[in-house]
């Protein structure tokens, strides 16, 4: 029959193409099967919300990349559970009397997962690469004059100015990881990075998953798991189904509206949350009238009901805050001058002589919580006579407009900060790199400059408290809330802890079977 031959030919061609193209790019470095043999620790499958753009830790800026790389790489120092910086590749360090020279002692006998030794040369190479190629984290090395390795286990960092937050800069997250020169130069680092962490990348199927295998050269306690497989599941409902069905054992991509119910009774699933160091805020463009008037900004701060905003945006998985740094951090400063007071807001707007104001608020679908929060904010501001026009953009366009300053206001968050300098400097210093909303107060500039170099912790805390108070009083940012980190895992998983900096560490995790 002619017709069946025709259809058959078309389909046969397509099938042949499928078979001919092979099967992605998944190569195992060792023979361990994914279900594991006798006495093995098994494979934990983790569902994350998207695919890493690349796996070069110094080049990527994607959180999805760092979820994977947290388990592959080491930094000189690293934040412990309380986010205080502690030893990692460096076991100890000393600071010169003038605070300008830091000397780190490296752990003996550390090896990369490919077996080659990790020495001070690798640390020097890694930092030089960030500085000379002007990679993403280059701004963290602003005060670094030189990095040298006088012997294989000593690294000396010379500074132009005292830098009390140097440890956070050198170890706050894996963006400043120690990389292997040959791995970088061959270009393999983008898909097959070689680090010294508890696991090593064993396979990468583009669009589908990344598989890690235990690094037997790891310097720390031997990880219990044989393998960790990260799969990319964008839809939270689908991720939850995978967790419930046992296809995955861990995910941080849970439908926010179901979190409360899951925490109460998740069946075979444990859901836990922890308040994070992230904060979400409303920024008003002070390069535009009338937002250059502090009374207008304060009026908006008084008009907002933060509890309602947090409830809408995060389904209650957040703690409201009028400053940036959350309770629980040693840098927290208790200050909350803005109660929800529409009368006060109207009064301040009257003082500023502002009537019938229309505010252009820019939010992004990349972070759906900004879209929900914007709707509540619009309703609250309407109550004091401000009409809010919400513009929902995709993130690429959003970033573009933020950079060009074409907005009255925007909503966004800052994630993963540890040191107060990271919380305030680039955002609120006049001309600061992230000061897209054009805030400028010489008094705050002075405090932020002083805090950068102040080495006495008590005096430093006092400086940042003053800066925080002024920033809140000026409503440079209108701070809204600190969200919780919410993650869920199967009851088989043992030893996992939710961290407030969102670092996903599987090194101490086991799997009961």
């Amino acid at each position, binding site marked *: *029959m*002619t*017709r069946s031959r*025709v*259809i058959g*030919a*078309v*389909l046969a*061609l*397509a*099938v042949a*193409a*499928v*078979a001919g*193209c*092979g*099967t*992605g*790019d998944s190569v195992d470095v060792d023979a361990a099967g994914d279900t594991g043999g006798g006495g093995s620790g098994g494979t934990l499958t983790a569902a994350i919300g*998207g*695919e890493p*753009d*690349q796996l070069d830790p110094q080049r990527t*800026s*994607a959180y999805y990349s760092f979820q994977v790389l947290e388990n592959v790489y080491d930094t000189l120092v690293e934040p412990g559970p309380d986010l205080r910086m502690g030893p990692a590749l460096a076991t100890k360090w000393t600071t010169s009397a003038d605070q300008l020279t830091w000397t780190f002692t490296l752990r003996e006998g550390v090896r990369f997962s490919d077996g080659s030794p990790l020495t001070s040369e690798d640390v020097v190479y890694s930092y030089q690469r960030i500085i000379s*190629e*002007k*990679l*993403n984290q*280059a*701004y963290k090395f602003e005060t670094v004059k030189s990095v040298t390795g006088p012997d294989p286990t000593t690294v000396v960092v010379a500074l132009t100015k005292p830098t009390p937050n140097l440890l956070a800069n050198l170890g706050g997250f894996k963006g400043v990881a120690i990389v292997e020169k040959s791995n970088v130069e061959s*270009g393999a680092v*983008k*898909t097959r990075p070689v680090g010294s962490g508890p696991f090593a990348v064993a396979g990468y199927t*583009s*669009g*589908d998953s990344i598989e890690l295998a235990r690094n037997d050269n790891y310097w720390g306690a031997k990880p219990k798991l044989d393998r960790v497989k990260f*799969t*990319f*599941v*964008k*839809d939270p*409902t*689908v991720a939850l*189904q*995978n967790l419930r*069905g046992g*296809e995955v054992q861990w995910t941080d991509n849970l439908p926010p509206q179901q979190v409360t119910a899951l925490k109460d009774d998740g069946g075979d699933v444990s859901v836990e949350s922890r308040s994070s160091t992230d904060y979400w805020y409303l920024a008003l463009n002070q390069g535009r009238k009338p937002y250059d008037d502090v009374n207008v900004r304060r009026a908006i701060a008084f008009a907002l009901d933060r509890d309602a905003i947090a409830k809408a945006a995060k389904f209650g998985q957040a703690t409201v805050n009028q400053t940036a740094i959350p309770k629980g951090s040693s840098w927290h400063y208790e200050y909350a001058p803005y109660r929800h007071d529409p009368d006060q807001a109207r009064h301040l707007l009257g003082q500023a002589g502002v009537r019938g104001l229309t505010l252009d608020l820019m939010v992004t679908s*990349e972070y759906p919580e900004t879209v929900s929060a914007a709707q509540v904010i619009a309703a609250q501001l309407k109550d004091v006579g401000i009409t809010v026009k919400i513009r929902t953009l*995709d*993130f*690429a*366009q959003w*970033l*573009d*407009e933020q*950079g060009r300053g074409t907005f009255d206001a925007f909503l966004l968050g*800052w994630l993963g900060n540890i040191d107060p300098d990271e919380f305030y400097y680039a955002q609120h210093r006049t001309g600061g*790199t*992230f000061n897209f909303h054009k805030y400028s107060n010489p008094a705050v500039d002075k405090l932020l400059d002083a805090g950068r170099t102040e080495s006495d912790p008590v005096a430093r805390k006092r400086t940042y408290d003053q800066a925080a108070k002024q920033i809140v009083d000026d409503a440079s940012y209108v701070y809204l809330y600190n969200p919780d980190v919410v993650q869920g895992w199967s009851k088989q998983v043992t030893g996992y802890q939710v961290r407030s900096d969102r670092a996903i560490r599987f090194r101490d995790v086991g799997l009961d079977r």
Partner: protein
Amino acid sequence: MARFVLRRLLQSAIVLLGVTLVVFLLLQLVPGDPVRVALGTRFDQQTYDALRERSGLDRPLVAQYVSYVSHALTGDLGVSFRSGQPVTTIVLERLPATLSLAVTAVLLALLVAFPLGVLSAVRSGSALDHAARVFSQFGVSVPDFWTGIMGILLFAGVLGWLPPSGYVALTEDPAGWASHVILPATAVGLVTASILTRFIRSSVLEVLSEDYVRTAVAKGLRARVVVVRHVLRNALIPVVTVVAVQLASLVGGVIVIEVLFAWPGVGRLTYDAVQARDYPVLQGAVLFVAALFLLMNLLVDVLYARLDPRIGAR
């Protein structure tokens, strides 16, 4: 025949060149800066300038386009802004997943649409015909991601028969592949089945009203013989085109379903590339899909020429 194919190939090349130009120009119109997306929110101006230079985005547009096309002619589609991997490798890696999903969806669709379409035409006005029309109306109206989510909730959640998402390569584990492909392929296939059912029905109806069918009936042939030998043979020729076009468009267009089911195909690649403004990957993916489309069309035309000599002679 050889001249016919050669002429079509030449035309295809010109179309592809046009595609590169249109895509390139469109990307310039889309707001959003790939360098900013790559760097996220935390970087300083020097880092921005350095990456812009490394990506070649600081060059004039004409220079960028000319160098893109001249490299593309040698098979080099550039490297991804995001991952630094060659675009050709990236797209080829994703092709098997997409092709296997698209082919399965079209096969499922044909399995339903062929009998349904033919029967509802032959027994036009019957209860079956009405049911078929309701089915195809439903299939084209309900969005595929909705059927997808319902499928996941029912077959993965409540019944636990199928995995909710993910992908296993057909060549590695055929059974695993089948269990993963069935939900997304059904979600996509339902839409295709509805379109094909309608098309097959109207095509068969049209042929049924032809004079030669009346003649065949009049000379006393049995209904079965009339339908199989005279009607289907003629009615299904245009259907081949529609099936081929459906298949080709599925290869480029199952974006939503691929994202929902975490299916590592070209659609998901395109989605991620759009989000990141990864121009080289986007251009590469569009070019591949366009080429595939043209190839399908050429194939159909060649088959036509064999079925119907009048086409080749022209």
